């Protein structure tokens, strides 16, 4: 279990493992798109589904601002009421 943020962290590392993305030197400042993790829309959709399955909601579907960096995902769960 643990806090929503630590669960989100576990989901992200599982996602990166499943999609064979490099996790070397990833910080909260690493971007999700382009030069960062380089997610495309299909990969982002996969991550959003995994987060939704684990945490009940996800920052990509919530209708707010689209997350830009890894840290934005954690921030979403800090702000969101826990399940």
């Amino acid at each position, binding site marked *: 279990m643990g806090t929503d943020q630590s669960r989100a962290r576990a989901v992200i590392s599982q996602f990166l493992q*499943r999609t064979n993305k490099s996790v070397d030197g990833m910080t909260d400042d690493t971007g999700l798109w382009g030069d960062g993790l380089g997610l495309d*829309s*299909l990969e*982002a*959709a*996969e991550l*959003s*589904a*995994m987060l939704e*399955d684990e945490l009940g909601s996800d920052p*990509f*579907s919530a*209708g707010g601002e689209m997350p830009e960096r890894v840290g934005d995902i954690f921030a979403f769960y800090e702000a969101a009421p826990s399940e």
Partner: protein
Amino acid sequence: MIRLIEGAAAASPSHTAVVTPEGSTSYGELLHDARRVAAALQGRNITRFAIVEPDAAWVIRLLAGAALAGAEPCQYQADIEALEFEEQARALGHSVVVTRRPDLGGPLEIIRPQELTGQASHQIVQSAGAQPLMIRTTGTTGLPKAARHDWQFLARTVAGIRPMPNQRWLLAYGPHQFAGIQVLLHVIACQATLLAPFPRQPRDGLEALLTDRVTCVSATPTYWRFLLAEARSRKVKLPRLQQVTLGGEASPADLLEELKTSFPDARVSQVYASTEFGSVSSVKDGLPGIGVDALFSESNPTLNLRVKDGELWVRAVAGMIGYAGESGADPSIAAAEGWQATGDLVEIVGERVLFRGRKSEVINVGGVKVHPLPVEDRITSLESVALARVFGRANPLTGAIVAVEIIPMSGLAEADVESIRLEIKSAVADLPRAWHPRSVTFVDAFETRGEKTVRRMEE
């Protein structure tokens, strides 16, 4: 139906027609009982009625008697919930039900099957005209509908069948399903023996294969998969079947191969049929899909299949007369000279027409149209996977993503799900990226409208 039983009873009255957990019944006995049922229906002025009955021999007695009397029977699945039955019987206007179940009825008049065979059959007014039959279907929308058929049209598909009294057919479908009715008709037309265990799960079918000298089986691909898996896990030696028939869903290539290996003497046929348009095509070469030589063309104007805008169209030979509550034929079908869309998406690859899923099942992933079937085929061909169900899952980023539910071969508790995930990834690697499953969940059964099954076409 009744004519075929009369034929079989005249040829060999003591030959066993049907074997159920309640015993064996000969063709002579079936005909005798059917005549009593007909007389009793006419004596009670019953012109249409519901049947809720698990035993196939009783179902045949009731259906044949109704055909003789010109009354319209309609079967409901034997284990239907009492409240659901009352609701659906009301919707279809049934006021009489023939059943042994003590919990059914509500406002309906209840008749026990034995009451209809209890009296001598001296007065039957032979039905000169219609021999109606109503077959319920869940349809693709999930809403119950009922198709109105006539035995005289249905029997066209078995016209000219040679008697093969030594064949022993397993009834793997419910007799209330269209495919079950087709099996009943076929068995009676060839004066063979029907083996009808109840319940009708694949493990019951396997038991019948091992102990009842079954020679021919018609079942869905899902049923075959479970039957083969059950045989593997029990390490039993399968009997040498003469005939293996698949229908109700598209048959994946790997399953066809496995069936050919498991039953090397058998002819492997795939039937293309539905409750609405009847039995249209039968493919006997054991390859997936349908040969393009079965398609209508200027040089083959009598054939009843064609491909239009990536969808299979059929011209029904022994189709339904209409849905319950609708009088005439659908005018749009008449306008298209009998051709109607099936909702089955197909692609012509070389010499084959291959199934790509149902029209309503196409998943739109960011504008890319994904057909679930090729994805499902690749995943179910994995040894670690017993069954897979591919469907669209809503997603705000791409509209939808491809999702899959997996029943692992080893059972949910024993499965190494992370390694199955990797196998799935390699299995779909040749497909475009939008087709790759983005949501993979592991389950121990599929829940579709309360039934544990994968469903493609109509029952």
